[in-house]
């Protein structure tokens, strides 16, 4: 199975090279609304600011959605990975990846994917932690606030 070149999420589309792709119609509607607002002599500056913030938020959501979606897809392919949790705060995303034992060959696959991830998402500070369960549960090792991305 090949990785999809493009991801569709509820808010629009996102390509895998890290570029935001707003669907044409959606973008045209937004642009039209924006023009209406900026032509309004009252308070246009305020609206312009809101609109810029809104676009930034949409872009951020797309990037994060794609980052998590691609990560889940890639981690699923690595048999030895038992569970993956992630933590996100603004542009910092940390993945905690749990293995049952220490197998360097399997870990190399994670490092290779991690390297690709860094180049695909330059705006994010992405960190990974590789942890060995050695019979323990991930929940015993996780700090507060982790969200499960993948569990086998």
């Amino acid at each position: 199975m090949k990785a999809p070149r493009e991801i569709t999420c509820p808010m629009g589309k996102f390509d895998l090279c890290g570029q935001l792709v707003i669907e044409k119609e959606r973008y045209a509607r937004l642009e039209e609304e924006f023009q209406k607002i900026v032509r309004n002599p009252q308070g246009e500056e305020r609206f312009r600011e809101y609109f810029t913030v809104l676009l930034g938020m949409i872009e951020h959501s797309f990037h994060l959605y794609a980052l998590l979606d691609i990560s889940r897809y890639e981690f699923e392919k690595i048999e030895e990975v038992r569970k993956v949790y992630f933590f996100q705060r603004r542009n910092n995303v940390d993945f905690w990846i749990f293995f049952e034992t220490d197998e360097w060959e399997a870990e190399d696959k994670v490092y290779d994917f991690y390297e690709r991830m860094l180049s695909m998402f330059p705006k994010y500070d992405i960190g990974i932690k590789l942890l060995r369960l050695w019979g323990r549960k991930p929940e015993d090792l996780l700090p507060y606030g982790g969200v499960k991305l993948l569990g086998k």
Partner: protein
Amino acid sequence: MASNPLYDALKQQALHDYNLVSSLSPTKPTFPDWVITISFYMALHCVNAHAAINKWKWEKYPQKSPFKISRHAQALRYVSMKLGNQSFRDYNRLYQECWNARYDPFFLQNSHCSKAGKLFELAKKFIEILQ
């Protein structure tokens, strides 16, 4: 390579770490967790020194000068961009093992400690990038 004070200081730190690990018998260590930890910091100082001599600036913060890597995520990105795939793997491995050695209480009980010598060998490769 032309020299600069930051580079010289970081290189000295790396060599200092190298001497310390060598004195801990890394192939049959009594303190494998410390061999791993110091090996990682040796590599980290080498990467910092490499960034310093190349006057690399973190593109997100171009106003910061002279450049100094201040977060592990930045160091990893730097290694990925400038030192190639194999170095990225090695550096990552050192970073992960160091973290586990420091923070996972089960680490010493498991056989993984026997890999301390191998990890020191990986760290030594980073000394070579400074030559």
